[in-house]
């Protein structure tokens, strides 16, 4: 299930209740300060797979195609994968862009935070910045993962804020749905699932 958590676009009516866990994570970890010509939003996804499997996919800055259905392939510049690294993403055909150059802004393996900023490419998403966090939770008595992704981006000429938010949310929903499918498949295939705190 994908839900929306209020950003400056005030989608409060779509808040998904979870004993305050989500709103607390959003408040602490997903801070964006959108300018007048920008839009922002936050999405959540509950995945029936242990957090270590989900995080391993999310943190693969050099292999986003493992779960992102829009990516054809990806090349990281330089030898060391660290904050500040750049990757050149090639997008699949038939989509509204062909390339995207992206910078790794945050990578925290303890708190499970990944931050990425778009710095080039032929897409129309100027100053796009996103934060993804993953958090352990229990689903039907089994280890699951709460994924939260938030973004901020300039509204392109010719589009409204609402349209831009809708489009970016559509892309993220596809990414999160695919992330769920891939990690749940991995969870089924792995022989044992270690218990996470």
């Amino acid at each position, binding site marked *: 299930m994908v839900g929306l958590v209020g950003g400056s676009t005030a989608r409060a009516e779509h808040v998904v209740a979870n004993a305050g866990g989500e709103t607390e994570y959003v408040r602490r970890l997903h801070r964006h300060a959108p300018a007048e010509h920008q839009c922002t939003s936050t999405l959540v996804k509950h995945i029936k797979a242990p957090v270590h499997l989900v995080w391993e996919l999310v943190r693969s800055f050099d292999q986003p*195609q*493992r*779960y*992102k*259905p*829009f*990516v*054809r392939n990806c090349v990281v510049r330089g030898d060391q994968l660290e904050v500040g690294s750049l990757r050149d993403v090639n997008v*699949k*055909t*038939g*989509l*509204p*862009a062909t390339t995207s150059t992206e910078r790794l802004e945050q990578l925290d393996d303890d708190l499970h935070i990944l931050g990425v900023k778009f710095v080039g490419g032929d897409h*129309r998403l100027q100053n796009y910045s996103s934060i993804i966090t993953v958090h352990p939770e229990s689903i039907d008595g089994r280890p699951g993962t709460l994924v939260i992704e938030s973004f901020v981006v300039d509204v392109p000429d*010719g*589009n409204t804020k609402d*349209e831009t938010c*809708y*489009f970016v949310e*559509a*892309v993220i929903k*596809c990414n999160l*749905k*695919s992330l769920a*499918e*891939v990690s749940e*498949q991995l969870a089924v295939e792995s022989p044992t699932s270690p218990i996470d705190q």
Partner: protein
Amino acid sequence: MVMASAGVNVPGGDEVRNPTAASASTPECRMRRRHRLEPQGSGDAAAAAAPGPSWVRRLRPAASRFSPSPSPSLSPSSSQSSADRPNDEEQEELDHEVEVELAPAGPQLEPGEAEGEPEAEAVAVAPQVWPVAFGSLSMAGRMRMMEDAVSLHPDLCTWAADGSPMHFFGVFDGHGGSHVSALCRDRMHEVVAEELAREGATFLRRRQESAASGSAAWSERAEEERAWRAALQRGFRRVDDMAALACACGRVARPSCSCPLAGTSSGIVGSTAVVALLVRGRLVVANCGDSRAVLCRGPAGTPPVPLSSDHKPNRADEKARIEAAGGRVVFNNGHRVRGILAMSRALGDRLLRPEVIAEPEITVTERTVEDECLILASDGMWDVISNDIACNVARQCLEDGNPPPADPTAGGGGGAPAAGVVVVAAREAEPRCLRAASLLARLAIGRETQDNVSIVVVDLKHRD
């Protein structure tokens, strides 16, 4: 990368009929009219109904013929022999009518024209008068990835009602990867043939039931079209279901494929599909996406007839359907479903459901003897070449009376005609279709299309 192929399928080898078939349209029109008015018409219908069971049996070998170049002849059998008898009688009648009709010229034209509408109801016209020759060409163009696919299957199967050959041609323009268009190329014709066999059996049973009950509501033409539409709709649905299971390596399997490519997400990989079925004097076109089928009618200057309508998200009815499904169309380098996909229908694209559907829109068009050719192509061509220009280019190529001395490509499909005249026509026809497709492809590249280009040209005339 360039892929090209050409071939001819001219059924029958009747030497007596060829001069007539190659000549002007008037005798053919009069033949049809006379045949319909024959008092023996009901007798023929009764005779046709009798061999029903044997025709059902004949469906089995037809359904199993999935090779790229199926043989049009069935194995000899007593049921085959008995099934042929009505056709032989029909043949003799037509020959006789030719002799009669040729004598009075002027006065006969008016009655024929006046009865134009009833004429469209003609049933079981001999296959020989509806020639089919074809050629195709695909080019990657400026795109580095080739994701288009073409499927050419003349004499794919036979129609249960009368054994007429059914010819299958398709163009599939993939996006996000090539494995869905490859799946369409490899499996669509097989699945459609299975569904046609199934619908054919149903058609025969319903016809028998209708005849037994003395129902006057039976319309052979409408029932045939209903059957063909149902077969194509089910064929598209089945291939779309396969696409959800297709791996980038080409395997369609459950559980998931475990090859190295299995990690590549296939949620946004899809394909258009424009498919043409040619059976007797009718063109049946099923389209899903923004490839296109266009009929070039003669003589020169006659407007082309679109046989499909592009599924673009900003087409008013498509936009309404998308919004009713809870989606939106956002302009993002073009009008796109969710701002993501530039077409409103496609096979595959699992993650864009329910807005993006795989249901084809189907048209059925009556052929005329003036028809020049049928063009199926991906939007890589139609984006830069209008229907009018495409038809004019194709017409000129096909009318060219100076073919090269030897065939550049071996033709596929079709039986070996016995008549020398047909053989000569077959050899000459192939390179013209190929040349038409090739010239259109080069024109599209010259006009800087950014996409893959795939073109199928089907010649609808006997050309000497």
